[in-house]
């Protein structure tokens, strides 16, 4: 294995192990999402959701829950001097970006594994849409992981870090949310899943993922210079 790959695996393993031991992010994200569903149930005064309303509730909730994870992503590195250690190590700095993005992707996937069935249980008549929804969820997670890691790594160095991450990330993920809700809306339609323009929305999601993964990879070196 190349040194960069060793660094990638090591940082990723460290992150996942520390999350497993401390459970700092994931339980909070899941709890936040579940409570948000309850709030939507009363805010919208609906017990069943379908179509655009279901897609909107699901994606707004997942996005805001993801922001909690994004905010915490680099806190340990900053507080315990992890950034300095990476700077000292003779490795490609992009390994840190790749490891953090993978960790965030894993958090989001686990979050959705818990929360999306709860969403279906609360609001959907059947679980038929959940199969094809997995593709949309995974592609959207990849995009959030790319932009979230990039923004979080910058926001953590600022004075108002908890504020800045969501503030900048929210407009940045608007195209992602447009595509994710666009693909989910027919899937969650009342009369069973439909696939209207499913493919083109997945293509937009993939394009978004590709652009921001490459961009994050390319600019991450500049974020660690000092």
């Amino acid at each position, binding site marked *: 294995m190349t040194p960069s790959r060793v660094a990638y695996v090591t940082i990723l393993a460290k992150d996942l192990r520390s999350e497993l031991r401390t459970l700092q992010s994931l339980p909070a994200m899941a709890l936040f999402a579940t409570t948000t569903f309850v709030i939507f149930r009363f805010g919208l005064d609906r017990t069943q959701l379908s179509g655009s309303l279901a897609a909107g509730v699901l994606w707004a909730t997942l996005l805001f829950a993801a922001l909690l994870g994004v905010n915490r992503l680099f806190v340990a590195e900053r507080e315990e001097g992890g950034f300095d250690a990476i700077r000292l190590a003779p490795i490609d700095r992009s390994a840190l970006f790749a490891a953090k993005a993978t960790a965030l992707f894993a958090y989001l996937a686990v979050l959705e594994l818990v929360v999306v069935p709860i969403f279906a249980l609360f609001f959907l008549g059947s679980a038929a849409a959940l199969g094809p929804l997995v593709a949309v969820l995974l592609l959207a997670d990849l995009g959030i992981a790319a932009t979230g890691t990039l923004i979080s790594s*910058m926001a953590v160095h*600022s004075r108002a*870090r908890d504020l800045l991450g969501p*503030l900048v990330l929210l*407009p940045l993920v*608007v195209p992602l949310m447009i595509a994710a809700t666009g693909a989910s809306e027919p899937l969650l339609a009342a009369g069973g899943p439909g696939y209207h*323009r499913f493919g083109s929305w997945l293509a937009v999601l993939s394009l978004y993922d590709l652009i921001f993964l490459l961009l994050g990879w390319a600019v991450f070196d500049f974020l660690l210079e000092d």
Partner: protein
Amino acid sequence: MYGKGLRPLSIATVVAIAAGLSLVFFYAPLDADQGFIQKIFYLHVPLAIVALVGFIVGGVFAIAHLRSGNRKWDAYSYVAIHMSVIFGVAVLITGAIWAKASWGHWWVWDEPTLVSFLIVFLMYATYYPFRYAIEDPERQARYASVFAVTAGAFVPLNFMAVRMAQSLVHPRTFGTANGGLPGSMMFTFLVCLAATALLWVTLVKLELTAKSTSGQLKRLRRALDAPAPGGGGSRIAPEVS
């Protein structure tokens, strides 16, 4: 040194704006459908084009900064984005006036270009809080450049996603905006576009000159060992040497 050429540039801008406005009011024909209000097109559309191009130009300057490490490019990028955000406010206001006059509502969600522009504007509006929350000037310049590059990549992607989200093919009320523009209108439009672009360049140059002058003044004061009034200048603007 940034002030060089500012005077001829300002004169050219004034002449171009005067020419553009006279063409708009005395030469371009009245629109058959919309009448007089259609003339806001000559203000709104050039402003929008110049603002969007300005955002991209800010991203290009940011790439130059990241590649060369020269802080001058960061100041260019900052001023380009700053001016484009100001132009963006004007775009949203003129767009709202036009929408009210021709559709009867101040805001319409089914005009994809306007909605895309709003999202882009909201994205760049976070440039300021983002930039000023980072204290170390070196780091601030680098992070602001990364922001400018990221947001520059976001602009075309966002336009694509918003346009795709129109579930029905929306009838373009402004048939004039694409294609079927009569020659006299097209000529007026191009003059207005050039005038707006000149205005943008002049304002960018003016702001860079002002920043460079105040930077020089600060250095002179420091050389004289006199404390600057108000505690040493603002942290807000990037400095130009």
